[in-house]
């Protein structure tokens, strides 16, 4: 579908927010606390954070919550009765203010949830989400979307992409999907006709650091490299990188049992944890941090491109920003690119 | 330093000298005595035998008034008043329902926050520690300290001194320069309950007390209760009749004896008000 380009006045964003809320949609948008920015349900337009290059957490929590009930069960005289989650329990959600890299990440995450098994709960949830992307006008040294197929004004994954025209200017809105059009329909008067606008000149400049071939091609033969050990020595094995990542999809299933009642819950998990691959026997195929670190890079830059034809990375740089040990993924990828085989 | 004060009826009447000596001693040690305003009878008469609720309501009202007046400590020189107030405090602390009921009856909240001091506790806390150097005229006499009943009993409630062989007055008197004697009638009954109705019985009961004190060479009997005092002092005629001899050992309130020791004026201490002339 060819995108429809409209102009939204700066002052109209708040009106749009109110319209969306008025239409019984929950609006999730960036919110700042303790110096960190993450998505949460917003009731007041003024609560939406604007001063960030990238949110601390990605927006994946909206379609893939960190803790998600899958079913309820109860024991009774006849055995067990199970109640799943009905799709209509899920509200319509507006995902407001996500960066193009995150929007692109939705596709990458979906590819995992729809590989061999189609994850109904995930898909149900995602079907309720409308993505209102905002292009990037600022960048920092952690960003590398342009190296993994994205760019600061990338429309991929957004239903509407807003690009602010100058520091304090109005917005160019690119209506990209049917879901986007439905938003316009709620309040067409806020979306004026846009003239000929050269969007690119308002975007941040993110230099390309490596090519697909330089990394993907290299990794095929890199499995046994000593480089992994050197890179991962300072990794402390927490799950911060996976949990802020827009595409990390690993989860764990837990039963929360209280006598005859209980529920089954899925919770995020991370390949960085040492117990992630621990077998009951005591054997751990990834028993050192270097093997776990290698898994993280290989999965995102080798296995996913190979099997799903997408990267497992959007170049958002969050993992590097969040890492308590200053593991810098871009730096590590660059050094893989430069390493001798 | 301000101390609440509940005189009760005796200290305003038959034992004015007790009140006078308490105030005089307090003054000498820079303690401001603040009387509870609008106080009432403590109920020591017959109330506690007639009506349980009334027997608590009366003292509770006094304590509520003290609370309202902002007093944290109240000295109660009369042993009977001391007993009633303390018993009430004890019972109401144990039974919340009763406490609420009594507050309601009095139309006045009772919190139970006031510390009640008998005269010995008051002396021990505020006077005797400062006594050193202040005793200008040591009370250099052999004294029989007579405690009576209500100052030390029931021990479970009052938790003051040894009930069968109390020592606290002896210790105060020792510091005032006296020589307390060892005698047998420290806590024997003086017959106060029969003072009016069967005066000859008082003669006998109090007589045994005075007699033993005399036999053991006491030059003064020291008391801390208006009833004890009136029986041993005012009923001396009946006592002497029982004893068959004229015994003229004077009976002093502990505050009077202490007052003398620190050089207070005899009149200020009310020593002129006794039936048995105070010769010591």
């Amino acid at each position, binding site marked *: 579908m060819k995108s429809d380009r409209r102009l939204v006045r700066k002052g109209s964003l708040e009106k749009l927010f109110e319209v969306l809320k008025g239409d019984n949609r929950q609006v999730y948008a960036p919110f700042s606390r303790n110096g960190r920015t993450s998505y949460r349900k917003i009731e007041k337009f003024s609560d939406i954070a604007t001063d960030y290059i990238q949110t601390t957490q990605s927006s994946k929590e909206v379609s893939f919550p960190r803790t998600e009930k899958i079913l309820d069960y109860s024991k009774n005289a006849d055995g067990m009765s199970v109640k799943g989650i009905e799709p209509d329990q899920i509200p319509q959600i507006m995902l407001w203010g996500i960066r193009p890299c995150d929007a692109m990440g939705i596709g990458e995450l979906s590819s995992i949830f729809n590989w061999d098994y189609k994850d109904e709960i995930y898909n149900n949830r995602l079907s309720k989400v409308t993505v209102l992307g905002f292009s990037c006008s600022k960048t920092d040294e952690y960003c590398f979307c342009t190296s993994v197929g994205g760019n600061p004004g990338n429309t991929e994954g957004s239903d509407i992409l807003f690009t602010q025209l100058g520091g304090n200017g109005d917005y160019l809105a690119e209506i990209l999907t049917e879901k986007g059009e439905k938003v316009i329909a709620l309040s067409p008067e806020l979306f004026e006709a846009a003239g000929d606008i050269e969007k690119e000149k308002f975007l941040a400049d993110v230099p390309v650091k490596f090519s697909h071939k330089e990394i993907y091609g290299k990794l095929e033969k890199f499995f046994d490299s000593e480089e992994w050990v050197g890179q991962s020595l300072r990794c402390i094995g927490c799950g911060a990188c996976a949990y802020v990542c827009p595409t990390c999809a690993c989860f764990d299933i837990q039963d929360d049992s209280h*006598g005859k009642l209980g529920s089954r819950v899925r919770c995020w998990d991370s390949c960085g944890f040492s117990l992630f691959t621990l077998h009951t026997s005591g054997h751990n195929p990834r028993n050192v941090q270097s093997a776990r670190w290698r898994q993280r890079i290989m999965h995102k830059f080798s296995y996913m491109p190979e099997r799903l034809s997408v990267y497992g990375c959007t170049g958002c740089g969050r993992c590097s920003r969040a890492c308590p040990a200053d593991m810098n993924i871009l730096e590590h990828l660059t050094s893989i690119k430069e390493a001798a085989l | 330093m301000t101390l609440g004060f509940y005189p009760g009826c005796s200290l305003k009447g038959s034992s004015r000298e007790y009140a006078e000596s308490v105030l005089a001693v307090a003054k000498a040690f820079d303690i401001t005595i603040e009387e509870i305003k609008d106080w009432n009878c403590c109920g020591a008469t017959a109330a506690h035998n007639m009506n349980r609720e009334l027997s608590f309501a009366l003292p509770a009202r006094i304590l509520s008034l003290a609370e309202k007046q902002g007093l944290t400590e109240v000295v109660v020189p009369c042993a009977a008043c001391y007993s009633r107030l303390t018993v009430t405090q004890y019972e109401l602390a144990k039974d919340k329902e009763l406490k609420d009921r009594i507050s309601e009856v009095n139309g006045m909240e009772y919190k139970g926050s006031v510390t009640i001091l008998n005269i010995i506790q008051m002396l021990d806390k505020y006077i005797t520690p400062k006594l050193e150097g202040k005793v200008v005229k040591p009370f250099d006499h052999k004294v029989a300290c007579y405690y009576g009943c209500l100052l030390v009993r029931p021990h479970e409630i009052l938790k003051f001194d040894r009930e069968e062989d109390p020592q606290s007055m002896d210790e105060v008197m020792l510091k005032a320069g006296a020589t307390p004697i060892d005698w047998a009638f420290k806590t024997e009954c003086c017959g106060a309950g029969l003072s009016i109705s069967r005066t000859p019985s008082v003669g006998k009961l109090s007589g045994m007390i005075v007699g033993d004190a005399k036999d053991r060479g006491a030059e003064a009997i020291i008391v801390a209760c208006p009833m004890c005092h009136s029986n041993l002092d005012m009923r001396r005629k009946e006592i002497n009749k029982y004893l068959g001899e004229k015994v003229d050992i004077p009976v002093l309130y502990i505050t009077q004896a202490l007052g003398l020791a620190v050089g207070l004026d005899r009149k200020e201490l009310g020593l002129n008000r006794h039936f048995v002339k105070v010769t010591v």
Partner: protein
Amino acid sequence: MSKIGVFVCHCGENISATVDCARVAETSGKLDGVAYSVDYKYMCSDPGQSLIKSAIKEKGLTGVVVAACSPRMHEPTFRKACAEAGLNPYMCEMANLREHVSWVHEKGEATTEKAIDLVRILVEKVKYNQSLNAIKVPVTKTALVIGGGIAGIQASLDIANTGHKVILIEKDPSIGGHMSQLSETFPTLDCSQCILTPRMVEVAQHPNITLYSYAELESVEGFIGNFKVKIRRKSKSIDEKLCTGCGLCTTKCPVKKIPSEFNEGLGMRTAIYVPFPQAVPNKPVIDREHCTYYLKGKCRICEKVCPIQAIRFDQEDTIEEVEIGAIVLATGFSVKQPDFFPEYGYGKYPDVITGLQFERLASASGPTLGEIRRPSDGKVPQNIVFVACAGSRDEAKGIPYCSKICCMYIAKHAMLYQHKVHGGKSYVFYMDIRAGGKNYEEFVRRAIEEDGVNYVRGRVSRIYEKNGKLIVKGVDTLLGAMPVDIEADMVVLATAGVANSDAEALAQKLHVSYDAYKFFAEAHPKLKPVETNTAGIFLAGACQSPRDIPESVSMASGAAVKVACLFSQDELTRDPLIAVVNRMAPPVYSSCVGCFLCVSACPYQAIEKEEIKNRAGEVIKTLARVNPGLCQGCGTCVAFCRTKSIDLQGYTHEQMYTEVMALLNEY
């Protein structure tokens, strides 16, 4: 899937009177995993136990919950029954429906609900129980008897005569205890020393008894069959092997005015002394607190006069470490001391004395050679008053119990007085006369009727001195509460029998329970009167409560039999309710990280380091290991371990967690 049997006991009507037992059984029967559920009148009876046994066999039960009385009462019974039916005994749990439900709540819905809850909790727990095997531990066949009074003497002799070794320790220089102080004994009036001394000598000569006099218990570690005991042997300042007991030193010692403990302060002794002529061992000790040499650095007269140079001034206390299989506590009692009776003037008037002092006055070996003479001036008292219940049965004195022996010894004292002081008048103030015992009542009647002792039923309010007489103010309740004033020459107080002042500390050393009055507590008031709550420690005599000689002796023999039973086995089985450190397959081995913080938390030093080595002998992991012989199963380490690497068998993480879950959720 578990197959659990629930057995609900009515305990006659003890439980069923307030708990709907049928409903408890019915409701429990519907729980997941419960295969059989039944209620029955007496589950601990033979038919009751058979019910359990046959259900185990017929239904193939994998776990049993008996809902009856306290597990502290019958857990062993039912576990044994399960074992007899082939079920591992540790698969049996008890829900306490009697002590914790029916006896403490009124009949009603809430009470039955609570019973149902308690059963459910245990059903869920039992699902996590594991089959355990009892731990076998060897038994050290030596007994320690603490206290050399008549109870300790009897227990020692009885144990020794079954062929086992006994170590008897006595804190005083001689054994004999209070009985050696007594003049005559009721109700036969035979001479106390005459019947005791042969036993004392027998102890000293018995090949199986090691006697440590002047020795005290220092510490105890370990458990039944395997105690490690340290005994402090206080320095006697003499060489016991050399000393012949000639006594020359005691006659020459210049410090002669020390109140004699044996004579209850009525006589004097020297600083180097033998407490009494028939003492065993009959060798002196130096009382360092009074000896001039120890106080001032010179004297040493005893050393000079000793014909065989047996005095050792530089001798020090020694600590003897012994291995012990069982302990008999026979430390006796004390009597209340002076300031307890200000109203009776005890401690103030020399002629107000205790019963024990009277024993010394009446004893032929006493300070007056058996003549009743009062301490103040040595005159023979013409009027004597005995006050019974001096402190006993008196809540105001904090002693609500009856001291039990006083009624009898007062009758004896009055009788002895009448026999010795012809024409003397004696009075006994009493509350009740408790003379239950063979020939006891007859004895008291003899005192009253034949010897003319005046028994006055009433209490004494005060005793004071007047004109050289002791005025005893009392009341005669049989004469309409008429006040009675007696002018006495001497007063004897039957002071309350109380626990020794160090009883509490001793109990804490031994981990035995004690009651509110610091008397040692028996394991069961009726059925385990000589056992304590700590296995392997037994009680004899008045350390458990005041008792007379025949009772002390029979109790001592009872305790001796318990010890002999224990020693009749070479091995003991012990509940395997101990802590274990988890072990896992390599390369993990255990979740224990070897921080060893549990080591300092363990009260028994039962946790040690274990090194796991590879084939080359290199240490690849260091972790904690619980020594099953030392662990007593308190679980202090379990709650402390951060990684939950230690668990306590019988009270595992899963079991306790499940109990809490089951308690608060529907199942």
